[in-house]
């Protein structure tokens, strides 16, 4: 019975990735796999438009992730993203750091108001995706974390 392993799914992913398909749904017994290629909107979005909606952290933490590896931590709101609590200070997190769900990973400033952003998931920081001091949109990936 559906004894597909993670490695198998990995393989399937690669296969589909290199194919022409946008969506895959697979159900085997109690296993259920759904895949949708990023940006599978009917009309290709213009270069200016970012990846659509935010993914809630728990959804992101799911083992099946479209690409890149790790879970993307999305900006909870639009504003200027700061890596450190103040200019010159050490950044909140850097690649390789182990974080908990409530670890602060950065600050989003909106009109002088500083909003701290938590990881939302425990794991190891892979990459700081959004540059320091630049605008991030709602839902834009800030950092990537390999779930623990």
């Amino acid at each position, binding site marked *: 019975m559906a004894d597909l392993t993670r490695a198998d799914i990995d393989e399937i992913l690669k296969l589909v990735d290199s194919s022409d398909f946008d969506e895959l749904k697979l159900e085997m017994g109690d296993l259920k796999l759904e895949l949708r290629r990023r940006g599978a909107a*009917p009309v290709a*979005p213009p270069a*200016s438009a970012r990846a659509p*909606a935010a993914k809630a952290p728990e959804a992101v933490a799911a083992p099946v992730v479209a690409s890149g590896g790790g879970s993307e931590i999305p900006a909870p*709101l*639009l*504003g200027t993203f700061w890596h450190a609590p103040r200019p010159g200070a050490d950044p909140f997190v850097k690649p390789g750091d182990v974080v908990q769900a409530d670890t602060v990973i950065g600050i989003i400033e*909106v*009109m002088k108001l500083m909003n701290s952003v938590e990881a939302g998931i425990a794991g190891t920081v892979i990459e700081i995706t959004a540059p320091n001091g630049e*605008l991030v949109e709602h839902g834009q990936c800030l950092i990537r974390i390999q779930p623990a």
Partner: protein
Amino acid sequence: MASIRRIFIANRGEIAVRIIRTARALGIETVLGVSAADADSLGAKLATRAVVLGPAPSKDSYLRVGTVIEAAKGTGCDAVHPGYGFLSENRELAQACADEGLIFIGPSPDNLTAVGDKLTARSHAVAAQVPVVPGGTVETLDDATALAEEVGFPLLIKAVSGGGGKGMKRVDDAKSLPAQLDMAMAEAEAAFGDPRVYLERFVTVGRHVEVQILSDGDTVLHAGERDCSVQRRYQKVVEEAPAPNLPDALRQGLLDAAVRYATHIGYRSLGTVEFLVDVERSEFYFLEMNARVQVEHPVTEAITGLDLIALQIAIAEGNPLPMTQDDIHLSGHAVECRLNAEDIARDFMPSPGRVTQAWFPALPGLRVDTHMQPGAMIPPYYDSMVAKLITWGPSRDEAIARMLTALDVCVLEGITTNAPLHRAILSDPAFCKGGVDTTYLGGLLPKLGENA
């Protein structure tokens, strides 16, 4: 004089697309701030860039002043266009733009203060010798009872901070005044955080006529009037320009009063002064001034040949108006139908969903402002308007005939729209005669049920 190079559009739907259209023609870049629900909308695709402001609910995205400012600055915009609705008449946004060195494509914060509160706006009207409906503010039932005797019944209770018909109550006799007043104040508090209400005479046979104002701060011009009397629950459904069968003296009186009002408050930008025309008495009363571009601005563009958005941008840049009153010629007649995603057979229930086909061919005299395309999603979070059909004709009859053809030829599938209502209105002898009042549509609706 500042030349605008990149506009942040703080709006959505057809007006975002409309602003992009003129910006493209002027060679100005656009950044559209969208909610997550609108990330794939036509406006987001057409803008030079789109940024997601926040999640779908307006209060978390389109209504956030700080987020809009942050997004405009972060994307290198030098101006903000607020469209209509949402933050378009929000003094806080206009002020924040001024503070942050962004050009607000609209009037000054002071202008917004002058017209934003119904009572202040009314006192300016009185000062500018523009007639107002008899009435006034009330704080207690005693106030109300005393004023009601003076004003007479029927009367209307309105929220001081309200707008667009929200929170209005009609009171037909003294007996029902106490209960209605209580309800109105409670609702006003809940909806606007401001319990203040005022009473005014309810003009039973009234037409809604409004005057388009253009002002660079020195020169105040009008671009004719629009008749928006075809309303359902205070929401405009069909608009036209000029107002049909309006005696010339009355028309001129309206136009002059509107210019007088705008001049009095030192208005600068596009704006609209709304009046209630008391047909029986051949009089008119000031209702309010809208300090933004209106949904129905295309009918004025159709009969004047002006691009009001381009003028609004030019004024915001600090340019003087490039014309005098004599340069504005009115020609022919134009009608606008607001196509809404709503089911008239089910009490106008909104019908959001996915559009499967949208085809608005270039018929003679037809203009369509829309964000619909095949595959477009109409999210359930915002208003249900999906397109505006505007027809121009050398005569009113021809404009109406062209609209009926447009309703037959255009295709919008996948959702239910109020197109049948527009067909009924435009085929109705009373509407075709011209000059219906604001009670007209309420009277037509039951008849539609009978025929259906």
